[in-house]
């Protein structure tokens, strides 16, 4: 570990103090009755275009993204850039589906995707499948935010043994838990504004200053070993890295807005128009993500891996230490403090939204549906607040006592699972054609086959699908959601053929999906 950088640490702590204050003060922002679930858990659906832009940006571009995407570029090269086409195609998908979902959820006071599925298909078991998938996929995601936090705290030179080593992460999470409990979604929404400004400042400074110091992009790319610079050209009888790259981008884009924390961000918007506008404005973040991915290459060109002062950091955090090491090397101390605070706060915002989203799901779709149907608004909000604490405590214990690699594996599996809710949620926004039990069967087939394929592929995201002597390596999530959809279509046709007069339960009307 480098010695403690006191200037950087002071700036870091000051910024953390500011967002802590902001998190508690947010309770009074656009004031509402925080004893109601839609006030606590959706900010009263009061956020306009700009706040939603910050909130969804703060939600999707997490601390782990800032650490892991450059780390992948640093370690594996060009393939890390799949994050760019991924975000390019995520927004058209968002544009086509989520304004409709916002409209229907607003009309019927739905707070979660599972609420929508329950109303649309009238099947509590299908809604339960969507709920459990959402909660299970979110948990490891929260845990990974803690990993991002640990890496920057390590980068500041703070180290210790045993309990002392974990203390900074525990304190940060205690603060996070407290302001999320008291302010609900208003806390991450207000902090996201500070976080995004810091992140933008960091990304642009890094992209201008570091290439100048390293002698320009020519020199940087010249320093990258040839096998890392481009995707390897596929050999005979396989689509190789090409299909892996494209399916990772497409599958990740389809899964992105199915995560509960994305849907919570979307539903907090004050109008469907604010959601539609964001589809055109959110690519602003994609550009930043592309620039961040390049930072993995800057780290290679700067030779951070060979420097003795970073040896301990790389030993502890692996390639995830590439960005903190690069910043420590290239920036003056005060700016290192800002950059690390940006990443650290970048962990708190999504962790808060994720825990709120998981709490909304539990409260609405498990507690009220299966345990106590007569919850008052106040009891509902209180249950959600407590669940948000439990969820965060679970993530913290996970990161303290289980190897980080397990959280990464679970997050990978979470992506494969969450995409299985696509037919019910995204296609459900357009059509009630599917039979609800057929959707549930498709979901089950997708989850089981996806898990089996991921295990067979040794927990790598891509699976080498073999067809007629050809090999198509591709993202397991995409392959299995296609299978899921096939099962749902075939079974729906069968059900309709056997029982053509079967009525459908649907509490939504076609007009509910458009602005009136």
């Amino acid at each position, binding site marked *: 570990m480098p010695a403690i950088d006191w200037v950087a640490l002071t700036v870091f702590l000051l910024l953390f103090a500011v967002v802590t204050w902001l998190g508690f003060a947010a309770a009074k922002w656009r004031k509402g009755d925080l004893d109601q679930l839609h006030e606590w858990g959706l900010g009263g659906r009061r956020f306009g275009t700009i706040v939603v832009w910050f909130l969804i940006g703060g939600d999707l571009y997490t601390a782990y993204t800032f650490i892991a995407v450059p780390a992948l570029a640093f370690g594996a090269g060009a393939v890390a850039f799949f994050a760019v*086409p991924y975000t390019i*195609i995520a927004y*058209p998908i968002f544009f086509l589906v989520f304004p409709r979902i916002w409209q229907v959820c607003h009309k019927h006071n739905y707070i979660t995707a599972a609420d929508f599925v329950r109303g649309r298909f009238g099947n509590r078991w299908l809604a339960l499948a969507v709920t459990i998938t959402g909660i299970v996929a979110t948990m490891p995601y929260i845990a990974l935010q803690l990993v991002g936090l640990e890496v920057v705290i390590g980068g500041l030179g703070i180290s210790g043994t045993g309990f002392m080593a974990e203390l900074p992460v525990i304190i940060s999470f205690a603060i996070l838990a407290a302001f999320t409990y008291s302010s609900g979604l208003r806390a991450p929404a207000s902090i996201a504004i500070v976080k995004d400004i810091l992140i933008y400042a960091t990304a642009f400074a890094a992209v201008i200053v570091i290439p100048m110091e390293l002698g320009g992009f020519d020199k940087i790319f010249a320093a990258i070993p040839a096998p890392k610079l481009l995707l390897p050209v596929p050999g005979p009888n396989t689509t190789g890295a090409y299909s892996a790259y494209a399916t990772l981008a497409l599958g990740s884009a389809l899964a992105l807005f199915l995560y509960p924390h994305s849907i919570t961000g979307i539903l907090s918007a004050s109008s469907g128009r604010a959601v539609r506008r964001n589809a055109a404005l959110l690519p602003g973040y994609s550009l930043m993500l592309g620039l961040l991915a390049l930072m993995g290459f800057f780290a290679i060109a700067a030779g951070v891996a060979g420097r003795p002062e970073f040896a301990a950091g790389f030993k502890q955090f692996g390639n995830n230490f590439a960005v903190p090491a690069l910043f420590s090397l290239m920036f003056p101390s005060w700016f290192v403090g800002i950059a690390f605070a940006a990443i650290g706060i970048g962990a708190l915002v999504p962790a808060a939204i994720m825990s709120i989203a998981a709490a909304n799901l539990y409260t609405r779709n498990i507690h009220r549906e299966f345990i106590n149907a007569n919850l008052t608004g106040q009891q509902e909000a209180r249950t959600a607040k407590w669940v948000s604490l439990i969820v965060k405590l679970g993530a913290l214990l996970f990161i303290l006592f289980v190897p980080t690699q397990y959280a990464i594996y679970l997050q990978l599996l979470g992506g494969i699972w969450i995409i299985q809710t696509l037919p019910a949620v995204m296609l459900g926004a357009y059509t009630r054609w599917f039979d609800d039990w057929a959707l549930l069967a498709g979901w089950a087939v997708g989850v089981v086959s996806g898990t089996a394929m991921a295990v067979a592929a040794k927990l790598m995201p891509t699976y080498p699908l073999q067809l007629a002597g050809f090999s198509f390596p591709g993202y397991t999530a995409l392959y299995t959601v296609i299978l899921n959809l096939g099962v749902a279509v075939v079974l729906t046709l069968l059900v309709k053929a056997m029982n053509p007069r079967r009525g459908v339960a649907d509490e939504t009307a076609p*007009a509910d999906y*458009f602005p009136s």
Partner: protein
Amino acid sequence: MNGRQRKQRGWSWWYLLLLVQFVAVLWPPFYNRADPHWLGMPFFYWYQLLWVILGAVLTAIVYFATDD
């Protein structure tokens, strides 16, 4: 076609314009090469970053064309 009809069907042909960016970035043989460089960046990188901007422009066009 007036706005009300489109609203009730919930579909607009403008949406097809969004497909362009899928084709442009999901077929790696289009861009998996180093030349031509631009500002010292290999084609692979600047092509995809350029599509971030083009994709945003296309989405904005569709937004304005379908906004009532």
